[in-house]
């Protein structure tokens, strides 16, 4: 935890985005997480991503539950909307917010405890609905706030700081999301912002449920030898499969990509992401291939990262339900409240 606030002084030649803002304008309160926490790097990546996407702060909603991870929304874009919900209930609160106003950008920040234990049910159903949001799991394999007990994502054989190794099967959020039909699934590492920032940008612009599972080491309770979620273990077993370059509609595709290694994916809004495959055999549009690949690599002891699966064809929640495009708050009263006669008619259809 830092005692003084980050000084209000900036590099004079800091770049400005389309809105005339710098990354400093997208910062939040000073972090009270442990020094060296991976979550703070995720925060920095989020700031960079929303800055580069020229997102207007008032059009951003930051959603979270409980846990170290869920403090993250306090640390970026102070001027944005935020909701710090009950433990594990961020997905349903986000569903409600999104239902009321589909024009906003929703970033949910959760952790392995918040999403894979207490909130597992919420997590899987948000995927099922293909809720249009960027869902970030800051995954460190332990319950940091309660002093380092194993979480549901801890690997078999991983050693705690004190005590016996974990014996239970881990829940892998990426495989889980794949099996449930999530439409944008990525894994990254808090210590690799070059990979993480474009993945978050793609996730924000993706229409539908976008999961970014970020290995985010707990520097206090899970960064020792024998841990499978430490900085050094993650770096040693890092398998970088696919890089993403996010291309805004206004930008030309300038970089040269080798045939077979580059794959453009057109997003709903007209933006494009370019996937750069580092492993040519990998096909990120095939769920079956992705499953097999992930399993094989996991068994080989590797941590597979990159944009692992993407499907732009499937419709997101509002499209599936044919909801109005207008935010509920902007609908005229008569439309929002059609009266008891209309209600009677509607109920009649179910009799």
């Amino acid at each position, binding site marked *: 935890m830092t005692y003084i*606030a980050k000084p209000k002084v900036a590099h*004079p030649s800091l770049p400005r985005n389309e809105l005339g803002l710098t990354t400093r304008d997208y910062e939040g309160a000073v972090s009270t997480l442990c020094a060296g926490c991976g979550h703070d*790097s995720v925060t920095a990546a989020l700031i960079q991503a929303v800055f580069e996407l020229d997102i207007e702060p008032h059009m951003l909603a930051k959603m979270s539950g409980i846990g170290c991870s869920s403090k993250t929304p306090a640390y970026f874009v102070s001027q944005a909307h935020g909701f710090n919900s009950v433990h594990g209930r961020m997905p349903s609160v986000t569903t409600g917010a999104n239902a009321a106003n589909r024009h906003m950008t929703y970033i949910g920040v959760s952790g392995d405890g918040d999403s894979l234990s207490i909130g597992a049910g919420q997590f899987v159903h948000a995927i099922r609905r293909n809720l249009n949001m960027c869902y970030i799991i800051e995954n460190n394999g332990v319950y940091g706030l309660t002093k380092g007990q194993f979480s549901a994502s801890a690997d078999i054989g991983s050693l705690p700081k004190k005590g016996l190794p974990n014996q239970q099967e881990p829940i892998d959020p990426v495989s889980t999301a794949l099996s449930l039909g999530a439409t944008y699934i990525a894994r990254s590492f808090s210590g690799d912002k070059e990979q993480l920032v474009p993945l978050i940008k793609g996730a924000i612009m993706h229409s539908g449920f976008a999961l970014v599972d970020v290995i985010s080491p707990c520097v206090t309770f899970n960064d020792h030898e024998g841990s499978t979620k430490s900085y050094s273990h993650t770096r040693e077993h890092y398998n970088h499969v696919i890089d993403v370059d996010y291309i805004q509609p206004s930008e030309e595709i300038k970089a040269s990509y080798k045939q077979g290694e580059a794959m453009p994916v057109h997003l709903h809004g007209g933006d494009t992401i370019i996937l750069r495959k580092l492993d040519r055999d990998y096909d990120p549009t095939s769920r079956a291939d992705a499953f097999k690949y992930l399993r094989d690599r996991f068994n080989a002891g590797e941590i597979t990262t990159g944009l692992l699966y993407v499907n732009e064809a499937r419709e997101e929640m509002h499209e599936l339900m044919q909801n109005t495009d207008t935010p509920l708050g902007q609908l005229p009263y008569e439309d929002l409240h059609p009266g008891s006669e209309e209600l009677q008619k509607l109920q009649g259809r179910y009799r």
Partner: protein
Amino acid sequence: MKPTDTSNPDYFHKVVDCQWGCPAHTDVPEYIRMIAQGRFSDAYMENRKSNVFPGILGRVCDRPCEPACRRGRVEDKPVAICRLKRVAADNRDDIRDRLPKVPEKNNGKKVALIGAGCASLTVANDLRPLGYDVTIFEALDTTGGLMRTNIPQFRLPPDVLDEEIDYILDMGVDLKLNHRIDSMKELLDEGYDAVFVGTGAPKGKNLEIPGRYDSDRIHIGIEWLESVAFEHVTEIGRNVLIIGVGNTAMDCCRTSLRLGAENVKVMARKPRGFFKASEWELEDAEEENVEIIVNHSPKEFVYEDGKLVGMKFDLMEYNIDEQGGIDRGTSTGEVLIPCDDVVLAIGQDNAFPWIERDLGIEFDKWECPVVDEETMMCTREGVFFGGDSAFGPKNIIWAVEHGHQAAISMHKYCQGEDLRDRLPDGLNLISQKMGMHEWSYSNDYDVASRRLVPHVGLKERFQKLDIEVELGFTAEQAAKEVERCLNCDIQTVFTAKLCIECDACIDICPVNCLTITHNGEEDDLRTRLKAPALNPDQALYVSEDLPQTQRVMVKDEDLCVHCGLCAERCPTGAWDMQKSRILIPYAVDEAASDQQPAAAGGSAK
């Protein structure tokens, strides 16, 4: 790039821009912290160690430290270092018992110092405590040299001058006033073990144009200022032209206003931006309604009935190239400007008519002595030069530094030691961590802008010649201004083997000066940092290879505000904030090392 060698004291010294930029290397952040703590006497002594005349320099220093100040790059205005020095001097207690002690018995060596200005006085200050018998010869009937004769009393009150000069004279210096040295040969024959020449650059430059010698109303700036200082001149005409736009010109125009001039114009040959005067001296003059007229090149003095009535000038036009260079200009016409008096302030020269040319003291084609820049010795062994007399007009703080170096050389010469075998600078690094989030210094960035020194009112100040215009900072102003110092001597020190590459330092750095990246050549690396390193004068601090990815940590020193957040956010203590103390040796340290040869560097106190 190779890992940065921080064991070389110059590396961290250079990060302390003000100290590096000061010819005498005054430890500025250290004394500013002392002022912040109300330790004015300590701050004064810290200053005195290196610059000898804090009260004087706190008013009239050329302040090379301020353009160097990092705060001037982070924002636009540097810390008011010079005026804080004055705060220390004005608020000090009696410090006489803290001055260097003089041994009861002299060491048997005699040295002669010519001129009682700042250079000679510094030599005396450094050599008397070693037991040297010091004699100062001064042509005038008072001490201080140029500090007294050329700096007007409204900028530097005589009592400030006297007090600090007396500290040195009271060490038991044999001062011979009204004792002009007319022959170096005769002086050398008197058997001194070493001789120091600190006679300044006493000859004002002349302007050889038609009509120059037809009036007694055309004055040479530094001579005229001296006459004013000694009250030989007490008035001047209503319309005065000052030729030249250096700091002497500023003193001349402001002095004219106090002697009855009503309309003073400073005539500059070149446009603004090419003036020699310091920015602040120009401001002070313009505050007093002095008109600065640019692009006027003097052509001739104009007379009517034998009386000086004005000057003719060529109107100039210049081409300025992209690098900011200016050509010689072309005349586009001429203009007559009426005046009663003209003061020529276009520069000064050295003058050594009293040094015989057959003594083995070589002079170059500009009639300047050939002096070794390290030892300050001329081509005749045992004769040393310092201040303006050595390399032409510079300023007080350079003269002080020359004095320190000459004193070391004179000591070594007298002891039969090799003049070039000098103690190197030393370096101490001490962690400033006091607790979890506690540092021994005020690390929170204060957004306050530079405080302005209050001045005496525009009417009141002209009533007498010796009313000091600047009042000095108030207590509140000083308390605010000290917080603007970035504590650049509290260094960010990195230990690569402890780093786990969590990026915490990079994310928290407010000025984006840290990057972890793959190593490369400096030119390439400078473009790949989180914010490009565009200032080539500022170093990159490059670490050894990091343990996990073999990348390197790179810090661009340019804009670091030394807030310590990198160290505070570092989970492993790879970053630490450590105070660098540059140990600069003086004559007293050279003398001490004769007994204890192992000690490198000077003493910290």
